[in-house]
């Protein structure tokens, strides 16, 4: 197996998910020459439910990958030799959609007596349980409901809050319900100070040590690509690009997704990709408290703020 | 007259040669009719045409509208899930049950009743199968080598019993034994090669009933006649 690439050789970049709005910058780098401009030959490969970028990176099948913070922390707990070189999302896109409401916010007390969908074993469970603990809401006061990808229980009103990726399915479902005359809003844990980091860019420690230049140029190419993809001036270009790869989503939807993505990815006043160490530490703490990991992993040690 | 076949011509769908060419025959009176001829000449085929199991022949067959013509042969089997006795009882109309008991004794089947069909000897299989056909409602029963694997003594006894019990029915008896068809059949249809004409020659048999004595010389003449016809 290929452990590390020779200079000029193609590097494999494994995404976390299928091509959609969350891969806009990655595709932008590929299609609009950003990688080439950095002297990189990159094979961008989509992810999926059965794909795990961390495993692939460790197995040497990919050199870079996208993984969520909880995946990173779990992998660290099992000794995976990986490091984080950029953080894609500043706010977690994993939120809860609900009917009515006026703003994308609801107080913690609004959860009492409601039926809240969670994916058992998923991030949303960890986040929701942590939130309930933080606001001292006894689990007996909310109805937890096991969800799957079928939204019927939400549509039929059986479940009040449904976990959803804000900038992807969130837009689609919101639109669908809007067309039927239903208003929807989102419940945002970040706003309640439960900050759980989402997708970030990873590679192995070995890559950083043996090919620091390659890591640097990949990182900066990707940050540039995302910066450009998210730039308002390039909106049309980005929408067309994402649509080319994700034909199942109409352009109008992609436009709305892009707007939502900007809010989640670009920090208030900074550059794309910034690693929020405090949020990572909180993420680790939450996972520890919720018993997802058994011992601290000191995640800050693998956060390479400038990719070194 | 039960049956009249006129100008039957037949070739199997995937067969090369004709089996019958303008064949004519008839069954005029009740009783035992022999169907005799060399192996492969078409006896089973003719029997199945008469019984209505083979269609697509040319020519004409006339028979009474409600005539029931059954074809039985020696390769049939009874189902395996219960004993031979049970199967026989099950396919016998209630009114015929005494007859069933008589047949079982005459056919020497008592020792087989508790066995499954697969546990019988060949001749026992033959007899069990024939028994159930005899208990059905029929006008003509075709016995296509139905007793081929039964010993001669038992066969003789079976034929005598059938003739005694079913005097008004028609039987078409296919066998390879000249002596047998000559002795027991009233008329013998000798089936000959498709190239010969007429394809069937009818010979009168001795039609023995019970243990009546038989003139040896007459019988031998009949046998010779049959062998020459074939």
């Amino acid at each position, binding site marked *: *197996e290929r452990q590390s690439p020779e200079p000029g050789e193609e590097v494999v970049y494994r995404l976390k998910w299928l091509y959609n709005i969350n891969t806009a910058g990655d595709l932008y780098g590929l299609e609009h020459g950003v990688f080439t401009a950095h002297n990189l030959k990159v094979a961008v490969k989509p992810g999926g439910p059965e794909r*795990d970028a*961390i*495993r692939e990176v*460790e*197995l040497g099948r990919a050199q870079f990958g996208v993984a969520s913070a909880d*995946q990173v922390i*779990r*992998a660290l707990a*099992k*000794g*995976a*030799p990986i490091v984080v070189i950029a953080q894609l999302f500043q706010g977690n896109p994993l939120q809860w959609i609900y009917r009515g409401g006026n703003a994308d916010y609801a107080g913690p007390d609004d959860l009492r007596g409601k039926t809240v969908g969670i*994916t*058992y*074993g*998923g991030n949303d469970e960890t986040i929701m349980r942590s939130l309930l603990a933080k606001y001292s809401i006894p689990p007996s006061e909310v109805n937890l409901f*096991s969800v*799957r*990808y*079928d939204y*019927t*229980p939400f549509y039929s009103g059986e479940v009040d809050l449904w976990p959803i990726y804000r900038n992807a399915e969130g837009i689609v479902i919101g639109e669908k319900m809007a067309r039927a005359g239903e208003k929807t809003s989102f419940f945002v844990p970040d706003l309640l100070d439960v900050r759980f980091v989402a997708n970030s860019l990873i590679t192995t420690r070995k890559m950083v040590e043996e090919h620091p230049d390659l890591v640097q140029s990949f990182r900066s190419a990707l940050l540039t690509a995302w910066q450009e993809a998210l730039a308002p001036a390039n909106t049309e270009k980005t929408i067309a690009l994402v649509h080319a790869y994700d034909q199942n989503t109409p352009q109008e939807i992609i436009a709305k997704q892009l707007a939502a993505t900007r809010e989640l990815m670009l920090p208030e006043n900074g550059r794309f990709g910034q690693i929020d160490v405090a949020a990572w530490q909180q993420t680790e703490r939450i996972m520890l408290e919720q018993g*997802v990991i058994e011992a601290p992993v000191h995640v800050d040690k693998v956060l390479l703020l400038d990719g070194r | 007259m039960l049956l009249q076949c006129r100008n039957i011509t037949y070739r199997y769908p995937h067969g090369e040669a004709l089996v019958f060419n303008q064949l004519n025959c008839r069954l005029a009176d009740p009783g035992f009719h022999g169907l005799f001829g060399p192996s492969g000449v078409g006896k089973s085929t003719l029997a199945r045409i008469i*019984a209505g*199991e083979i269609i697509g022949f040319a020519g004409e067959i006339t028979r009474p509208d409600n005539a029931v013509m*059954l*074809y*039985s042969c020696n*390769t*049939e*089997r*009874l*189902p*395996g*899930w*219960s004993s031979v006795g049970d199967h026989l009882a099950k*396919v016998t109309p209630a009114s015929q049950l005494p007859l069933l008991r008589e047949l079982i004794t005459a056919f020497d089947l008592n020792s087989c009743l508790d066995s*499954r069909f697969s546990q019988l000897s060949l001749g026992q299989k033959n007899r069990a*199968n024939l028994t*159930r*056909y005899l208990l*059905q409602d029929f006008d003509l029963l075709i016995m296509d080598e139905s007793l081929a694997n039964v010993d001669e003594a038992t066969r003789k006894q079976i034929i005598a019993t059938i003739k005694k019990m079913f005097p008004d029915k028609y039987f078409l008896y296919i066998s390879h034994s000249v002596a047998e068809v000559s002795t027991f059949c009233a008329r013998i249809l000798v089936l000959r090669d498709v190239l010969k004409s007429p394809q069937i020659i009818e010979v009168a048999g001795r039609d023995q009933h019970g243990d009546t004595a038989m003139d040896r010389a007459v019988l031998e003449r009949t046998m010779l006649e049959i062998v020459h016809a074939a």
Partner: protein
Amino acid sequence: MLPKRISQFLIIYFLGLGLLLAIKYCFSLSDYVIPGFTDIENTAADVFGRYLRAVLDTLGVAVIGHLLAIALATVVAIAGRGDNLVGAMIKTAAYNLQAYPIVAVAPIIFILLGDGLPSRLLIAAIICYFPLLLSFIGILTEPVASIEHFYVVTGRMRWQLEVKIRAFENIHKLMTVVTGSATLAMVGTIVAEFIGADSGIGYSLRIALYQSDMAKVLAALFLIGVFNSLYLVSLELLGLVIQKNMGVEPRMN
């Protein structure tokens, strides 16, 4: 027979495990990619009680689903046996139902039936009924002329008798398929739990996968294998008893 099945399973399982571990140590992979032996051991000890209850739960549903599937396949095969229009339609429906991946049909099932036990049973049954159906159709449409002739010409043939004759003549093949499809009932139940339920080993498996916890996955696969073997053995024993009662030469595949 039981110890044989189980030990065969164990050999296979540990061969597979050995292969994985060999890969791990050859390429010195972390526990995340392939868990180490002690990791597996600890995890197994940790989850054993829970997973055992879960797999028993699953087994219960699987047995009922299996019965359901056998009934379903029997009905469809019998109905689809004839050459008439209804038969053809039923068969087409049966084939097409199968053409849809259950993951795609599941939402429709959940809409129609809600997400209680009925949906789970139906999914388990659907997954396991098709192989049964194929064999049943193959067997039930093939005449056994040497036995059927008498019943046909004497006007005694009913569809029940026809089915009985053909099934009995192919009893060993039927046993093989019925026993073998037990595995599919098990897997069907697991998939149903994976998709929609909140109990059973399929549900545990889904969580382990979400958590990328390969050690738990391996532990679950172990228990699934053991109980699958147990179920198979029970069916084989049952099959032998049935065959003996029917008076056919008992045989096992």
